[in-house]
């Protein structure tokens, strides 16, 4: 993210090389935003719950991956499986223990509950792991760079981005083409009618919350290969994920992907061609404009 634009090609400085560098950076960041946002979007789409702890789940995944790497020597290339599974269970457990009690109450209830959960997770990590930045060193992909069209593409970011797209594709296929996927869609459309089909919608909610956590578990696992971990690392990602979900239309995975790529590109182009300090100004300005014109998002129903 923040560091990605800084790696200018040493040989170049040509207009085309700059352009392709900015383009590739934007697309790579966009793909990662898409996976983070997909988890949020899925939970919102099925349960009408905004998970305010989403960014903190990402942070927990990154810490898990960091400790797996530094204590046990497991590379992020492999530990994403463990962090994905861990976050699935952590997220499903948060649903069962916290969020479930708020469903069917006022709309503020799940919002405040997940907000409380996010504060708890953030402070727990602050207390246990200090606010220091920790960067996992000695990973397999560390320092490897590909050169494409004059742009230098760091391998860790590229692999993370490509893998995000693969996971998104699998998630989309699962929801559109499998029996459980249809049950998830049915629950999203009409919970009572889904119950009448013999679908235990409470279990579907648990599963969906688990999948939401799994998305950030996998994303966070890979991101540890190039990003520093600290207790506040989730904040910016969750803010961007909210923007992506709102732009893409709540509950739509293809919408989240397109919106995330758009956000990634706006961020990287504004950061390079205007000024680095305004890249998030541009992102949120775009959000405000789109929401004013199309309140249901660019690709919303």
């Amino acid at each position, binding site marked *: 993210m923040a560091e990605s634009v800084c790696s200018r090609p040493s040989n170049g400085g040509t207009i085309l090389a700059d352009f392709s560098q900015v383009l590739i950076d934007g697309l790579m960041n966009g793909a990662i935003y898409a996976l983070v946002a997909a988890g949020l979007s899925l939970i919102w789409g099925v349960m009408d719950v905004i998970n305010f702890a989403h960014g903190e789940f990402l942070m927990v995944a990154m810490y898990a991956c960091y400790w797996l790497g530094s204590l046990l020597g497991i590379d992020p290339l492999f530990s994403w499986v463990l962090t994905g599974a861990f976050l699935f269970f952590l997220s499903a457990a948060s649903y069962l223990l916290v969020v479930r009690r708020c469903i069917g109450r006022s709309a503020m209830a799940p919002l405040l509950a997940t907000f409380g959960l996010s504060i708890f997770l953030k402070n727990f990590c602050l207390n246990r792991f200090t606010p220091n930045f920790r960067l996992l060193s000695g990973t397999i992909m560390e320092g490897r760079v590909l050169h494409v069209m004059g742009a230098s593409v760091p391998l860790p970011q590229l692999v993370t981005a490509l893998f995000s797209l693969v996971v998104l594709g699998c998630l989309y296929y699962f929801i559109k083409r499998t029996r459980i996927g249809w049950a998830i*869609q049915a629950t999203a459309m009409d919970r*009572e009618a889904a119950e*009448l089909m013999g679908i235990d919608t409470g279990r579907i909610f648990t599963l969906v919350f688990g999948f939401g956590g799994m998305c950030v578990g996998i994303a966070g696992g890979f991101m540890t290969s190039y990003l520093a971990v600290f207790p506040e690392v989730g904040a910016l990602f969750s803010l961007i994920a909210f923007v992506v979900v709102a732009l893409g239309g709540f509950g739509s995975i293809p919408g989240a992907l397109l919106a995330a790529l758009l956000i990634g590109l706006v961020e990287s182009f504004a950061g390079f061609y205007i000024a680095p300090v305004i890249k998030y100004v541009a992102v949120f300005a775009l959000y405000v404009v789109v929401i004013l014109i199309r309140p249901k998002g660019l690709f919303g129903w």
Partner: protein
Amino acid sequence: MSDHMLSVSEISCSYNGVQAIEDMSLDVGVGEIVAIIGANGAGKSTLMKSIAGLIRPDRGSIKFCGEDITGTPANRMIFKGVSYVPEGRRLFANLSVRENLELGAFSERSRDVVEARLAEVFDLFPILKERERQLAQTMSGGEQQMCAIARGLMCGPKLLMLDELSLGLMPSLVEKVLDSVAEINRKGVTILLVEQMVQEALEIANRGYVIQVGRVVQHGTSRSLLDSDELRKAYMGM
């Protein structure tokens, strides 16, 4: 009472403290078509929902095939053989006809059985075969109602409960849909239906219950209800 498939005895239900039905009892025998008739707000749908497990009765008991099912959650009822086609169809609008039907058979794990049931419902409603890939929300009201009934049949129920089939359908279609209900019954499915089209419903039913403000006020064979002056005045405007 052992030959009764469904026995509802003296159930009472309320929403937020407001009584919707009170001490209501009814029986449905194996192979029967039983119609529940009454005006809007009389408590017909509440009765259906409490049998389907969507509402838990405050008092009373519901027995199905001899087993006490009072308070069983809705998602378990289909496994017991009770299928409820709710008022307003409640199809999954953004899914195709085929996907809606597959979801109707969610409780069935055997692929062969699901395929056989699909063939059966397509045989009953050939139009659904033509519309298989179409999204449910893009169909006409009549087609949607057929799809909802077919979805209710996909679990292979012993008892099919149909709530306000005629809602929003033109009269000629209502008869067509009710004819298919009679056909489903001839194939061995017991039917409990709620209907505001009193005449049409009683024509296919064996027996009927008349409900007013949360109580059963009259019951008997369809013939006797059709001949009853009281009923004719109240519901058929004759």
